[in-house]
């Protein structure tokens, strides 16, 4: 009879956590040490793990797996069959006759979630073309006029079929980076719920998620005109120079200043900042990567507080982030994210913020780690 070994409750619980991928880096390290302590520990872990793998999960929800299959089937069509009639497989692709108008150049993130479809509005003449990038994905689009667009996660870009016949107007919900093909006769206009950007042949980024606290347009190259009205209905009209950005605050309600010109007032604002109208701030940014790098493989994050960062990460990784502790929201993070997984990013956050997290399916819970907080504050005191 071989020796039976059963670990105590703590290690049982840690092993269960590991199987589900719910342990933190530190806990995994402890688990590994424990396994190396005694061959019985290792053996026990391996046997339990084998049973875990032996009980294969069956296909869970029908509609979920159907959706995945449809996407995969779509990808097969795109990759191997050209755009054949098979594409009608998706109900949303029913009337795709004019798909030639939109050429999908590629999916930046390599995640297969890419959807584009056409919606017909009431008037037949006003056919609208919509491009949607779901959460957790990015896509790159070539518009009929040659303009390149990078569409961030959870964003929608739409335009009428008459696009490029006399003008070039697109509507954006979410975030996109535009490299506008020069055409002096037909200005390129991006409409959002808060502001409009008019360009002739320039490169700029617009971030306008309706659920965010502010809307921002950032100019990389050339010149753009931005107009719109603040939440308190004050109109503004501003011309931006390269590496400037304009941010419209959704929460500004009181305002007496009317500035409907291109002059930028410089009063008591900090260096590099200017107020065009109450609730509208123009920034001169030495580094604009912060605004535009989301579309590249390197994503620069600069002094972003965890509350905002939670929103950015939830779009990028398609998870819901719940912050359980209000004091945690105030901590700021600066860093670069490349191809890290969500878990890797969270471990990195833990290096500089007192973060404690738990990962569930499509959900992440953030809480303040009192132990880490104390460690960090001790370091800060030491450095003073």
């Amino acid at each position: 009879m071989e020796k039976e070994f059963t670990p105590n409750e703590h290690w049982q619980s840690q092993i269960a956590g590991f199987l589900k991928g719910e342990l933190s880096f530190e806990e995994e390290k402890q688990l590994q040490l424990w396994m190396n302590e005694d061959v019985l520990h290792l053996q026990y872990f391996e046997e339990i793990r084998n049973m875990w793998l032996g009980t294969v999960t069956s296909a869970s929800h029908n509609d979920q797996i159907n959706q995945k299959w449809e996407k995969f089937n779509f990808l097969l069509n795109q990759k191997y069959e050209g755009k054949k009639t098979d594409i009608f497989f998706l109900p949303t692709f029913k009337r795709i006759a004019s798909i030639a108008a939109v050429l999908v150049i590629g999916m930046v993130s390599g995640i297969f979630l890419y959807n584009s479809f056409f919606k017909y509005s009431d008037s037949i003449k006003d056919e609208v073309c919509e491009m949607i990038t779901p959460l957790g994905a990015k896509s790159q689009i070539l518009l009929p006029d040659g303009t390149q667009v990078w569409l961030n996660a959870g964003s929608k870009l739409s335009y009428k079929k008459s696009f490029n016949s006399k003008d070039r107007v697109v509507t954006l919900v979410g975030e996109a980076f535009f490299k506008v093909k020069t055409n002096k006769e037909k200005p390129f206009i991006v409409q959002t719920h808060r502001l409009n950007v008019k360009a002739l042949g320039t490169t700029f980024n617009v971030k306008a998620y309706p659920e965010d606290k502010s809307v921002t347009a950032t100019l990389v190259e050339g010149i753009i005109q931005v107009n719109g009205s603040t939440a308190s209905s004050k109109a503004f009209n501003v011309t931006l120079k390269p590496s400037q950005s304009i941010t419209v605050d959704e929460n500004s309600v009181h305002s007496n200043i009317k500035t409907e010109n291109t002059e930028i007032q410089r009063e008591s604002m900090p260096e590099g900042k200017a107020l065009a109208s109450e609730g509208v701030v123009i920034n001169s940014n030495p580094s604009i990567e912060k605004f535009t790098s989301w579309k590249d493989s390197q994503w620069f994050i600069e002094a972003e507080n965890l509350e905002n960062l939670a929103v950015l990460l939830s779009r990028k990784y398609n998870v819901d982030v719940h912050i359980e502790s209000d004091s945690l929201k105030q901590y700021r993070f600066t860093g670069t994210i490349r191809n890290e997984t969500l878990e890797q990013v969270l471990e990195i956050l833990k290096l500089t913020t007192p973060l404690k997290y738990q990962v569930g399916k499509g959900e992440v819970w953030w809480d303040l780690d009192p132990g880490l907080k104390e460690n960090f504050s001790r370091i800060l005191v030491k450095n003073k």
Partner: protein
Amino acid sequence: MPDLSYTNFEIAEGIRSRDRKIFEFLFKKYFNPLASYARFILKSQVISEEITQEVFLKLWENAASIRIDSSVRAYLYRSIHNHCLNYIKSCKTDKSQAFVTVDVNLHPDIALSHLSEDLLEKLTTTELESYLNHTIDRLPGQCREIFLLNRNEDLSYPQIASKLNISVNTVKTQIMRALEKLREAYKKF
């Protein structure tokens, strides 16, 4: 999922001729199990699903030349296993991925300890699966319910805990109890 099954021969033929019906059948049957296997090793849901899709793409690409010796099931598991190993390898060689020294390999290292392809093949036979399912059926009520919520519905421990109004620790204890029972049964198998 349509409740139809194919013979091994039909499946092998269907793969070879890139029959969409067969691919749909395989995809719907194996996507979740394979993704869950990958997630066990790599921890990341997003990457696991991406890699699983890659496995099916490879199956499509190489359909004409693929030789499936044992079963499609074994082939797919071997394939996802190798894709995971390759992914880990590419992370290790591509230094640009880690800008802060975080040991991204710890989790896979633990997950993979002494996990060979042989064992994997043994674990993924239909015989063992049905034997284990039989054992699961005979688990005590709550223990079985928790185990199935976890393995079939893929709920996290906190999710199960709040659903059944019990503590996360109880969930973990019950999961381990179920696995212990399975381990005993496996030794007799």
